[in-house]
């Protein structure tokens, strides 16, 4: 079984990336998938004349909610309890896992079916349940592929984006039998055949399992309603069939009112799958008779993020993945290099804030971007990801050699006369600068790029010579 635990001890992002870049199959799969979704998103977003206004509204609603989160969360608790549900508060992953494990144990069951959920991935719930002797079955098609393949999700919305259909066929043929109904004989790699195999495999599970576990896309404070958007209907099976439903939801998922959904139900499908509307939207409030509902409200670092005036905008995220699909770095290295269930640009700002920058990997994430700004442009809740990246770079640790280099550069640039002297030194020894191989950290440049020749004269010297000193 794999999960976030496996991510611990991973090397820094550049090393992971180097390995991923050499995987031609991965590069091909990702290029094809990201460009396809990118194009679909652009066309359906382009249809809406009021996209900019929707985006501004979403930002405003989220900001207002986060500002008064304490109040809205108490409102959620009251509304859910009134509707017959039970509310639990979890400060961190361990506490959340303990709560869920305890709730499952109390039912006497040893199996749960899961709706695709980022929050439960974040806390490593499947691993915690396994330790307690409970098997968690992923029912989202892509999550199923990941689980059967003993693999990690590499995308927020499309966890198996790194796999193509022939790889999926192999995974089904080899591993489906370990988890239940085996793949049919003569399984082809036609999408229809693969979907049918998954349907038959999962259907048995839905009919027999008594406990469901989910997350939620939105949590409405005024009514205590939870909302899940999905494409397959498997989520709805998990949400309706089992006797007990346990939903683990990050505290930033709250929206104040039903009316606010109007904005987000337009933004999310268009930004994520490039659809005008997603096929299944499930909403539930409390529990109906004969069923039990538990809501686990998860902090796990979110309150700390909320305290950072620049970093807190990351909590507006609605997990649409538009930033991943448009990111030139993600497109080339895939999700695993980020060592977190949150990869891509949003992961690069969320993971170091939630987990801190103690590990080499987490400290390297804010640098996993060329700051090209494509992520900010597509973000439906206007998270200025480059701004947060730059902010996190200034608060995180620096390597001593780099610090020295940047300090020296800063000292030179502080005074025009120092810059002038440095330039004259460079032009005097210009013949000594190698074009193909620089020493030290410069080798990272000349590994693939030539060095431009140092000119005979800097611009300021030329100006001074032809125009006189205009200091």
């Amino acid at each position, binding site marked *: 079984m794999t999960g976030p635990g496996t991510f611990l001890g991973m090397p820094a992002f550049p090393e992971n990336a180097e390995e991923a870049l050499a995987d031609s199959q991965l590069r091909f799969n990702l290029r094809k998938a990201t460009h396809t979704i990118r194009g679909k998103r652009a066309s359906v977003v382009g249809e809406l004349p009021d996209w900019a206004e929707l985006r501004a509204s979403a930002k405003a609603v989220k900001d207002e909610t986060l500002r008064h989160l304490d109040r809205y969360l108490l409102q959620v608790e009251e509304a859910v309890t009134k509707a017959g549900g039970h509310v639990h508060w979890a400060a961190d992953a361990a506490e959340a896992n303990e709560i869920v494990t305890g709730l499952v144990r109390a039912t006497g069951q040893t199996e749960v079916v899961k709706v695709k959920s980022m929050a439960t991935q974040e806390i490593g719930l499947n691993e915690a349940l396994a330790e307690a002797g409970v098997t968690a079955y992923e029912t989202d098609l892509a999550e199923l592929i990941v689980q059967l393949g003993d693999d990690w999700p590499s995308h927020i919305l499309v966890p198996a984006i790194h796999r193509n259909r022939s790889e999926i066929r192999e995974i089904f043929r080899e591993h489906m039998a370990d988890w239940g109904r085996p793949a049919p004989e003569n399984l082809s790699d036609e999408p229809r055949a693969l979907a049918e195999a998954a349907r038959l495999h999962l259907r048995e599970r839905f009919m027999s399992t008594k406990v469901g576990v989910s997350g939620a896309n939105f949590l409405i404070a005024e009514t205590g309603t939870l909302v899940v958007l999905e494409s397959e209907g498997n989520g709805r099976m998990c949400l309706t069939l089992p006797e007990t439903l346990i939903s683990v939801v990050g505290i930033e998922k709250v929206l104040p009112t039903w009316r606010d959904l109007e904005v987000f139900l337009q933004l999310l499908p268009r930004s994520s799958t490039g659809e005008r509307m997603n096929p299944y939207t499930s909403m539930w409030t409390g529990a109906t008779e004969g069923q039990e509902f538990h809501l686990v409200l998860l902090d796990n670092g979110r309150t700390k993020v909320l305290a950072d005036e620049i970093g807190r905008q990351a909590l507006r995220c609605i997990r649409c993945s538009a930033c991943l699909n448009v990111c030139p770095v993600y497109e080339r290295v895939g999700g695993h290099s980020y060592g977190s269930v949150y990869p891509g640009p949003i992961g690069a700002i969320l993971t170091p804030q939630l987990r801190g920058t103690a590990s080499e990997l987490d400290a390297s994430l804010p640098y996993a971007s060329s700051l090209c*700004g494509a992520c900010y442009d597509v973000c439906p809740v206007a998270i200025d990801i480059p701004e947060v990246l730059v902010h996190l770079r200034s608060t995180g640790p620096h390597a001593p050699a780099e610090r020295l280099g940047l300090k020296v550069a800063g000292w030179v640039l502080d005074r025009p006369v120092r810059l002038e002297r440095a330039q004259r030194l460079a032009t005097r020894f210009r013949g000594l600068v190698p074009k193909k191989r620089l020493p030290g950290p410069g080798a990272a440049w000349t590994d*693939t*790029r030539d060095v431009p020749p140092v000119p005979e004269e800097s611009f300021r010297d030329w100006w001074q010579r032809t125009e006189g000193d205009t200091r």
Partner: protein
Amino acid sequence: MRVALFITCVNDTLFPDTGKAVVTLLRRLGCEVEFPMAQTCCGQMHVNTGYRDEGVRLARHFLDVFQGYDAVVAPSGSCAAMVREQYPKLAAGMGATRAGAFASAHGGHSPFAEAVAEVAPKVYDLSEFLVDVLDRTDVGAYFPHRVTYHPTCHSLRGLRVGDRPTRLLQNVRGLELTPLPGAEECCGFGGTFSVKNAAVSAAMCSDKVGNIISTGAEVLCAADNSCLMHIGGTLGRQRSGVRVMHLAEILARTEADR
């Protein structure tokens, strides 16, 4: 109109011909150009690599040097975007500090924020200055070559210069402008990203270069020498035969330069 040239530290040191081209071009269009010699750097490298304090020090110096001009023209979309887009964010971020909080609590803005509000809106990328301020899309240039144009990220998504550079190029006599596939994708330079994540940077540039070569152009043009240094360094290493030129250097050429 008092027009100052903000050459940028990279152009000043490594690409003086771009600066000379800007001076030639602006004078040809009737502008008096001043070059305040106290200028050094906008601070982008420091801020974007995580050395905010050093960056802010350089930003303060920039604001001192360029105060009082009607327009500040930079042949770099990235450095112009640093001043116009990132300086206000730096100023706002200072509100989170105790001194900034004190200033705003007492109804005032910090001197830094005031200087940003005064200077930043007057900073233009070359193409913006030509099209918006001088109202020229035909600058009388002549350049009989096949050219493709890469819109650099910070001019595209920071300054939003839009089609100004290509409108200028379309009006250059003799120039055949050929569209670049995947033009809006980053080339992978990203300042210190190019060495801190050299492998990813190279992979991005590899795709950019493939697209450039597919156009059959002789010249790749952009309005930022940092990106051109990265793409040009790769084109050169591959012996592609495609050369890179800053927009200013193409626009400065006339029939007389033949």
